[in-house]
């Protein structure tokens, strides 16, 4: 009880309570944004009230009374019209309570009234303040709560729009501070210390330094980008699939031919459009578009030339330019579930076959395959044969400019087309992102990786449509940074084109949802409208069109080989799995810090330092670790080398005033040697012990000298000179 009394009155406990309150507040902060809880302030007020009462250890009855009054008053204030002191509303409240209790026991949670919910919430807060007090004052342990808070906030940050960037920092500061102070209390309890004024300061100073340093370092240190793709799109899409048998959604997502006005939110639609049987997962192409208008995509040639294409023909557009390209021959079966006039086909298509000997037409400009007679009952099941390529990274890296004869002017004009209206800052950004890269492949990767930055968020709902004067890509890159595949893929194409690298926009579907193996061991997938997707193809003169996947949360199915790669930068590429999304390269991140480059020199210095650390962190870490190791070794072996150092050091200190230092160094060395002096042992007594141990007389003589200095306040002249030899002898004895 006495200890509790002591805890009550001191300022440190006040800090404990304050930190505890702030930590608890972190739980309430997201409520306003994420739930339809209003008037969060009222609850925070309640929290403050509870903790203040608890801090001053108000008697339990008074505490409960005051809190009850507060609760009743706020409920009256929030939910009931009429003055508080007209007790008519109390009757309503009571009947309300009874009603709600019935609902609770009936399990009809959703029907609970707001006032009752608030009451429950108050109850929860009472519990929390009690727990907080229990943790802080009685258990003196807070780690579990701290950890729970962290988990809570990180989960919210990941799966909800709540932005916890600063909340995490706050929680870390609070948590460390709390744990530090509580450790202090625990040690005090265990060691039964008397509280002394200096103690708190002595403890708090390193604590504050530690917390500040760790937070600053943590805040400033480069952070690895997520190893896993953002799980949100996956989880949402997964949950949508699970909800398959729900009522049909509105068809706002799915495959459409009009891409002239991109942007805006869309609702999920899980209508099954295709079922496939393949032996590897891959994207399904429908068409490509080449002209960007600033608002969306159109074909540069409207109703372009259609080439007939029979089941015996080889698909004319799969012309890998690299003759040594490694390919895998594959076959896939596609079962359309919806009547579309077009076919879906995989990368590297060679031929299409079906049972009814249909013929097809290809619209060259779009690379889109139509069923010729779509007046009939529609396309049945068909088989595609295709060569899945393995793109040689080395071949792609060979391309550094447009000098290759394959790149005709016409071709370049078509696939590097950009609207006049495209803002300059988009082009600047493209240059900025790729400034450290020389070849086309690295540039494409840099741009692709740029979208892995945490600034970009995958979102299907809160997506803007560009205004009349706005550019779709510009808006996404600089203003919203929030969108779905169209935003990402279009942006990448535009960025590539502004670098003069031919690129085009591809529409189609992702592989869909895996549904198990078929009878002949093929993998079956179900493709719904939700799987409609768009991505990017970049043209490399030695290879051909190569797909890239800038969209967050999706991964590129195309395969790359790194066989011929020998330079170091390539190895770095190799480390990054060919399956995107990849951890973004620090350099890329570095290079793309907003186009508006600040002139502020501190920032430049900061960037420079960061850059340096990013580039040499391995060395720095190694150097640091070896320094630590060396320091540790030196510390452990100090008994061996320290005497020599001391002898050396004091050889140059000849003044008598140096004698006390030398004597004290000797005492310390003897102590390390294992000849410990008890605190209550006099020096003379100790010196006898030492002299007996070494069968010497040196310590006695030295001690007599030191005693004269210490207890008389006078050093005899030349005393150090006379005794130096004794001192050296003695200190050397401790090395053997």
């Amino acid at each position: 009880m006495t200890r509790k009394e002591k805890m009550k009155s001191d300022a440190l406990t006040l800090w404990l309570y304050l930190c505890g309150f702030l930590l608890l507040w972190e739980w309430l902060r997201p409520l306003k944004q994420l739930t339809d809880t209003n008037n969060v302030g009222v609850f925070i007020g309640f929290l403050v009230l509870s903790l203040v009462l608890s801090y001053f250890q108000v008697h339990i009855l008074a505490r409960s009374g005051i809190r009850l009054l507060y609760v009743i008053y706020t409920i009256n204030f929030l939910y009931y019209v009429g003055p508080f002191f007209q007790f008519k509303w109390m009757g309503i409240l009571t009947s309300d309570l009874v009603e709600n209790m019935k609902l609770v026991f009936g399990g009809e949670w959703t029907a609970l009234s707001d006032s009752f919910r608030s009451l429950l919430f108050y109850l929860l807060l009472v519990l929390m303040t009690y727990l907080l007090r229990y943790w802080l004052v009685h258990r003196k342990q807070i780690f579990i709560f701290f950890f729970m808070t962290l988990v809570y906030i990180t989960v919210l940050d990941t799966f909800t729009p709540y932005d916890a960037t600063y909340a995490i920092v706050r929680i870390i500061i609070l948590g460390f501070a709390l744990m530090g102070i509580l450790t202090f209390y625990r040690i005090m309890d265990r060691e039964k210390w008397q509280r002394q004024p200096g103690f708190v300061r002595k403890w708090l100073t390193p604590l504050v330094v530690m917390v500040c340093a760790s937070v600053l370092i943590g805040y400033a240190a480069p952070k690895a980008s997520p190893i896993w793709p953002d799980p949100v799109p996956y989880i949402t899409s997964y949950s949508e699939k699970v909800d398959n048998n729900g009522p049909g959604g509105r068809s706002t997502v799915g495959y459409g031919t009009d891409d002239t006005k991109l942007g805006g939110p869309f609702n999920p639609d899980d209508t099954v459009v295709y079922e496939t049987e393949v032996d590897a997962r891959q994207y399904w192409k429908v068409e490509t578009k080449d002209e960007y208008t600033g608002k969306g995509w159109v074909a540069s040639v409207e109703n372009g030339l259609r080439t007939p294409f029979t089941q015996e023909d080889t698909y004319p557009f799969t012309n890998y330019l690299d003759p040594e390209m490694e390919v895998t021959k594959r076959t896939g079966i596609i079962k359309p579930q919806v009547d579309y006039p077009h076919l879906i086909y995989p990368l590297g298509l060679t031929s299409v076959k079906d049972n009814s000997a249909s013929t097809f037409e290809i619209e060259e400009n779009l690379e889109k395959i139509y069923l010729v007679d779509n007046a009939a009952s529609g396309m049945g099941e068909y088989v595609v044969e295709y060569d899945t390529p393995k793109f040689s990274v080395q071949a792609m890296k060979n391309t550094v400019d447009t000098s290759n004869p394959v790149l005709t002017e016409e071709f370049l004009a078509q696939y590097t087309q950009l609207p006049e209206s495209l803002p300059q800052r988009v082009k600047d950004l493209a240059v900025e992102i790729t400034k450290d890269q020389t070849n086309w492949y690295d540039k494409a990767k840099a741009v692709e990786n740029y979208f892995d930055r945490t600034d970009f968020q995958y979102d299907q709902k809160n997506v803007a449509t560009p205004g009349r004067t706005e550019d779709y890509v510009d808006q996404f890159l600089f203003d919203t940074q929030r969108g779905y595949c169209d935003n990402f893929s279009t942006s990448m194409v535009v960025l590539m084109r502004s670098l003069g690298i031919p690129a085009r926009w591809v529409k189609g579907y992702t592989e869909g949802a895996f549904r198990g193996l078929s009878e002949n061991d093929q993998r079956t997938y179900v493709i719904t409208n939700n799987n409609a997707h768009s991505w990017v193809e970049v043209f490399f003169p030695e290879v051909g069109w190569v797909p890239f996947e800038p969209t967050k949360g999706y991964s590129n199915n195309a395969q790359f080989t790194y066989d011929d790669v020998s330079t170091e930068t390539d190895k770095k590429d190799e480390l990054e799995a060919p399956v995107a999304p990849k951890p973004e390269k620090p350099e890329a991140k570095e290079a793309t810090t907003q186009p508006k480059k600040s002139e502020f020199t501190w920032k430049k210095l900061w960037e420079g330092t960061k850059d340096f650390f990013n580039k040499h962190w391995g060395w720095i870490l190694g150097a640091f670790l070896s320094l630590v190791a060396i320091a540790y070794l030196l510390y452990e072996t100090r008994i061996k080398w320290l005497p020599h150092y001391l002898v050396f050091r004091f050889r140059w200190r000849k003044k008598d005033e140096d004698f006390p230092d030398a004597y004290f160094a000797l005492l310390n060395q003897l102590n390390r040697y294992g000849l410990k002096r008890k605190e209550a042992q006099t020096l003379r007594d100790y010196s006898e012990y030492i002299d007996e141990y070494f069968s010497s007389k040196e310590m006695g003589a030295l001690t007599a000298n030191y005693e004269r200095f210490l207890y008389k306040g006078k050093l005899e002249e030349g005393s150090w000179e006379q005794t130096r030899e004794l001192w050296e002898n003695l200190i050397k004895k401790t090395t053997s």
Partner: protein
Amino acid sequence: MVQEKMNPTIEKILQNIERVMIGKRNVAELSLVALLAEGHVLLEDVPGVGKTMMVRALAKSVNANFRRIQFTPDLLPSDVTGVSIYNPREMEFQFRPGPIMGNIILADEINRTSPKTQSALLEGMEESSVTIDGVTHKLEKPFFVMATQNPIEYEGTYPLPEAQLDRFLLKMKMGYPEIEEEMEVLNRAQVLAPIEELEAVIDLAELRELQQAIKRVTVDDTIKRYIVDIANWTRTSTSVYLGASPRGSIALMKAAQAYAYMYGRDYVLPDDVKYLAPNVFAHRIILKSEAKFEGITAEDVVLRVLDRVPVPVQRLVK
């Protein structure tokens, strides 16, 4: 203890005493410390171990006027201080000084007499003067009392009050001699009592000089702090009802000065303090009854404290 050269004068006195006292050098040393520090000594021991011999030898060595008071239950204060007697021939009262008017006084079995008589002696010890019939008589200097008392448990004793115990600088025990020493005592007892042959080593004036010299012995602040620490620890010890008083601290410092001087040093070491502390503090500490029941003595407490108080080994930082 590192063998130190003693102050030659003091060495001579001690050797002189040793001519009659076999062994017991430490008792002689401590008595001399009290004499030099202008304090008094309480010897607690059984009869017949040589207390009187010790004091007489000391008195003879310093050529002091030796008096002995044998305290008995019927002794009156005037028997100690002296009395005015009417002289019919001269028609006036004449003061006849009591045994207290000497330099070195052996107050034998002080706890056998009534408190009234005890206090007459103790007043003299404290004030260096006695008042008889309204006339204050200054006592001679040096004035040194060595009181002996039988261990308190004996019957028919009047234990000295704690406040009065505080007046004694040191309390010590004589103890029995070693076997060889006792045999030597017997040998000597066969011939003439050697005490009669003892000659003075110094005179009173020299003794007073010595007493002045002792006051000049340096006591560093670190040592003062050490003394105060020890006193403080005795006050907070769990088995102590009343710890050492500030007067006790002063006593310890003075005794340490004398002891340091005796060993030819003009500065005090913690070793001096440590050595003297049990003798200086033990009789000033009142133990709790629980501690007494457990058989803990005041000496034990002081020794335990000495075992824990850190010795200063660095200069105080101010």
